């Protein structure tokens, strides 16, 4: 059974048909890349799946239940978590404080004035686990705003992991990163997928990364699905080559 299924999904904004006829299914544990030229509809697709706005056509199904008209907050509770193209962390706080807020929120102890020592210990342990997962343990007490861009994005991943995602949507996770930062991030994505079994959808422009780590690749162009397949199939697909070469020309 597929974790996420889109059946003939479309989205129209006034006269603009941003997406149409999108049908795809993502299996549990899959690492799926979404690629396509600028304006192909990748971010719109993410907005539909994460409930930022509903599709104007078709149905979205998550864990065998339709989620077409479910709001983003409820979807977060069900396990669909996303990151954005811009980094969303608290720059004035330390890495540890950033993670702590996320963990406490996920545990439902947001503004409770008093918690037990056991809960407090559980929070600390989870924060340390997350820092370890994203390899930020050594920088726990650094102010997030003083970290390199790549480290900030990694902290952001730590924050979203606190919510125990079943489906993680990453919008351009390596945008603006240098080689080393990019390697760190792709390594993290791969580990989260393989070690923790988190199903992921990611938008990425760097084809080396896409072909290097994705199980399957969905190609969008002009709001339609151009192709879908594994790295070899996509690389050899003449329509994909045309779309990309056509854009470059």
């Amino acid at each position, binding site marked *: 059974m597929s974790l996420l299924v889109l059946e003939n999904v479309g989205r129209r904004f006034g006269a603009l048909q941003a997406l149409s006829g999108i049908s795809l299914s993502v299996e549990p544990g899959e690492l799926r890349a979404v690629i396509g030229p600028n304006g192909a509809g990748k971010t719109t697709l993410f907005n539909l799946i994460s409930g930022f706005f509903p599709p104007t056509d078709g149905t979205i199904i998550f864990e065998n239940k339709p989620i077409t008209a479910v709001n983003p*907050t409820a979807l*977060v509770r069900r396990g669909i978590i996303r990151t954005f193209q811009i980094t*969303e*962390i*608290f*720059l*004035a*706080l330390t890495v540890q*404080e*950033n993670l*702590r*807020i*996320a963990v*406490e*929120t996920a545990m439902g*102890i*947001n*503004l*409770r*004035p008093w918690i037990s020592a056991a809960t407090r210990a559980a929070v600390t342990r989870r924060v340390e686990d997350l820092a370890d997962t994203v390899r930020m343990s050594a920088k726990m007490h650094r102010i997030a705003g003083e970290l390199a861009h790549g480290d900030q994005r990694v902290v952001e991943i730590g*924050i979203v992991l606190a919510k125990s995602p079943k489906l993680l949507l990453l919008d351009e996770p390596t945008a603006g990163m240098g080689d080393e930062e990019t390697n760190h991030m792709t390594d993290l994505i791969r580990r989260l997928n393989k070690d923790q079994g988190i199903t992921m959808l990611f938008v990425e422009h760097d084809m080396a990364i896409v072909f290097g780590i994705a199980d399957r690749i969905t190609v969008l162009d002009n709001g339609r699905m151009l192709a879908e397949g594994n790295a070899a199939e996509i690389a050899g697909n003449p329509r994909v080559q045309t779309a990309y070469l056509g854009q470059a020309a």
Partner: protein
Amino acid sequence: MGLVLLFNAFNGLIQGAFYALMALGLALILGLNNTINFAQGAFMALAAYFAFTIVPYVGFWGALIIAPLLAGAIGLVVEVALVRRLYSRKDPIYSLLLTFGLAFIIQDLIRTIWGAQGVPLAIPGFLDHPLSNTYFFLTGYRLFVVAVALIGTAALFAVLRFTRIGIRIRAGNSDLETISALGVNIYLLRSANFVIGIIFAGVAGILAAGQLGLNPNMGDTLIMPAFVAIVVGGVGSLVGSLLGGLIIGLASGITTAFFPAASEVVIYVIMGIMLVVRPRGLMGQEGLFE
């Protein structure tokens, strides 16, 4: 001359501690509530009058704790009923006008309830005596004011550094939308923050009343220096507001020793120089006034 200078410098530091307490409350509310709270001085007077009324029943020490909490309760009502409605307006002029009006309303309420005449606030006898004959200005009360200011400031920074609500207040200052998206109730958070700010005003008000006595307009004379402290220290930085308060208090005190007539204007001169030389203030974020 040395003793006079020391006297005035010490006096200035005490004044600076007042300013810092006031400025911290103002800076908190300016940060998370995005409100320039002109009624901060009125809340200060209100807490002092509450203290005046309850001292016969709970004593000075009881009043020092209970009266700011009472003022905080009024602050909560004001925040929920009025201030909150203006959060969606980006232009700070709306909340400024609201709190400006509130200041007049609270002052007139005080005048109606307690009368326009000034009254003294009784302080414990042992705080009233000089600690030494040479250093006659070192009364117990003055040291007490400094001690309360230190404790209050330390408590505030500890709350902001270590507690769940404090970390969220700082996170909200950094990015309110994200903290809201994470599932934190920002209405509750902002209410709590406003109340903490008012409690700080209340403590400062009672300390001032013990020294200067009470009158309905007592907040007016202290609120402008508190704003100056924020501008000098840097908008958006609590540490800056604290330093700003101490610096202008000290400067005002030292000026008194040499040229008493300029002791009030000197803080505005400092603010003017700061705005020209370093518009963001001592520790403010870049770009607020640049």
